């Protein structure tokens, strides 16, 4: 048997090599674990260990790169979301003000308010017109007053189909019949321009001398003239100049004309309606109930 194998190996060099390799592999397999570990560390040291290290490092680098890209996109998304949230927060604040403003109207003075958004402000240093995104199709007509929560803005000067132009209080042709809220002294508020046509402030004219007007008094619409209803806030008295026959009252307008975004067009008064009032009351109650902590009863239930 041995001689047969010897002859076979002598005749076939390749086969002999294979047999030697198989024998060596079998010996390696049957080595004690400690010896295997030593041989493995010797075999792995020159090639495999550095390669593995490089592979692990490369893998880590790839993972860091992909994580970096993922985090970058996450940061971008968060920045966008934050910007959106800030914008929504501002809008929420504005809407809250508007809601308070609407609710603040007296029961008998409930106006038919049409909300609109400012879409344009043609003009240079002087705001001569404000364009809004509602027009005749929404029931807007020239002459209708336009307000914001802070106070009066102006009136509709032109109503197109889906757009309207407001003549603001800063317009040279603007004149509002007003009264001092405290003393009920009446007058007309107009814009006052400087030499280079810049708007200086507003002035209340036709005020008799020695009228009871003080700095800080609130100026509201008087309702005279039929354009603006009575009681809309116009602004505050900032200075009082006494003259021999008349007084010149300087007024600061309450509404910031250059920063407005949403306005309300006063289309008229809403006739009293008990059904509508009841519905509003129900809606208000539901709204308040939603805001209140509703899970107390749930928590108590096992």
């Amino acid at each position, binding site marked *: 048997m041995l001689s047969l194998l010897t002859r076979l190996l002598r005749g076939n*060099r*390749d*086969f002999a*090599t*294979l047999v030697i*390799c*198989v024998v*060596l*592999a*079998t*010996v*390696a*397999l049957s*080595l004690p*674990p400690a010896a*295997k*570990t030593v*041989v*493995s*560390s*010797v*075999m*792995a040291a020159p*090639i*495999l260990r550095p*390669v*593995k290290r*490089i*592979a692990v490092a*490369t893998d880590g680098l790839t993972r860091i790169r992909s994580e970096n890209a993922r985090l970058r996109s996450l940061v971008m998304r968060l920045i966008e979301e934050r910007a959106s949230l800030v914008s929504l927060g501002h809008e929420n604040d504005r809407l809250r003000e508007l809601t308070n403003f609407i609710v603040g109207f007296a029961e008998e003075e409930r106006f038919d308010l049409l909300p609109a958004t400012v879409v344009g402000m043609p003009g240079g240093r002087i705001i001569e017109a404000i364009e809004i995104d509602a027009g005749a199709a929404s029931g807007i007509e020239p002459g209708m007053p336009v307000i914001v929560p802070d106070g009066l803005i102006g009136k509709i000067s032109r109503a197109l189909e889906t757009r309207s132009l407001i003549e603001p209080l800063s317009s040279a042709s603007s004149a509002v019949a007003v009264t001092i809220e405290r003393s009920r002294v009446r007058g007309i508020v107009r814009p006052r321009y400087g030499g280079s046509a810049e708007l200086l402030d507003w002035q209340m004219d036709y005020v008799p001398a020695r009228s009871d007007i003080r700095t800080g008094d609130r100026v509201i619409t008087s309702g005279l003239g039929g354009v603006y209803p009575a009681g809309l806030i116009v602004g505050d008295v900032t200075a009082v100049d006494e003259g021999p026959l008349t007084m010149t009252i300087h007024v600061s307008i309450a509404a910031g004309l250059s920063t407005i975004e949403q306005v309300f067009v006063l289309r008229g008064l809403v006739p009293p309606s008990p059904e509508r009032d009841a519905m509003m009351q129900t809606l208000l109650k539901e709204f308040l109930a939603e805001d209140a902590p509703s899970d107390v009863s749930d928590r108590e239930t096992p």
Partner: protein
Amino acid sequence: MKIRTFVVLCTAALILDAALAPEIEILGARPDFLVLVLIYGGLGIGVNVSVIAGFFMGLMVDSELPEYLGLNALALAITAFVAASLLDRLVKSHVLVQCCVVFGAIVLRDTIFYTAYYRGSIDIFGHLLLRYSLVGAAYTVAIGLVIHVIARLANWRAITGAPRR
């Protein structure tokens, strides 16, 4: 092919198996660069050197798993012998023959390895063979085809068998 070139190729295959193969796996199957080098390198260098290279490269691979030291050496040596001997007896430059030999070599290597590694667990053995070996073999054959095309373009006569016309 010189022995030095063959050794460099084997080392490169070891590096590729360790570093690149895990990155390019498809359906969990990886290409076997070592077997490719043993077969295509064996075409130019002969059965004897191919078997010895297979044994030592196998030992290198085994050093990662000391418990089974010698198992990959055994599998690769046998695989290199069978593949090189087969190619010696067949039209070794034919691409189809090369593909079949590569495919068979991968399955043979895995069969030897799994038989020893999962002895007594025929179900695991069968699952691994069917799930990974066959896909891995097909993947390796695809890379072998690329090598064959490159060999044709570069006019490597050891692989293509005839000068480029």
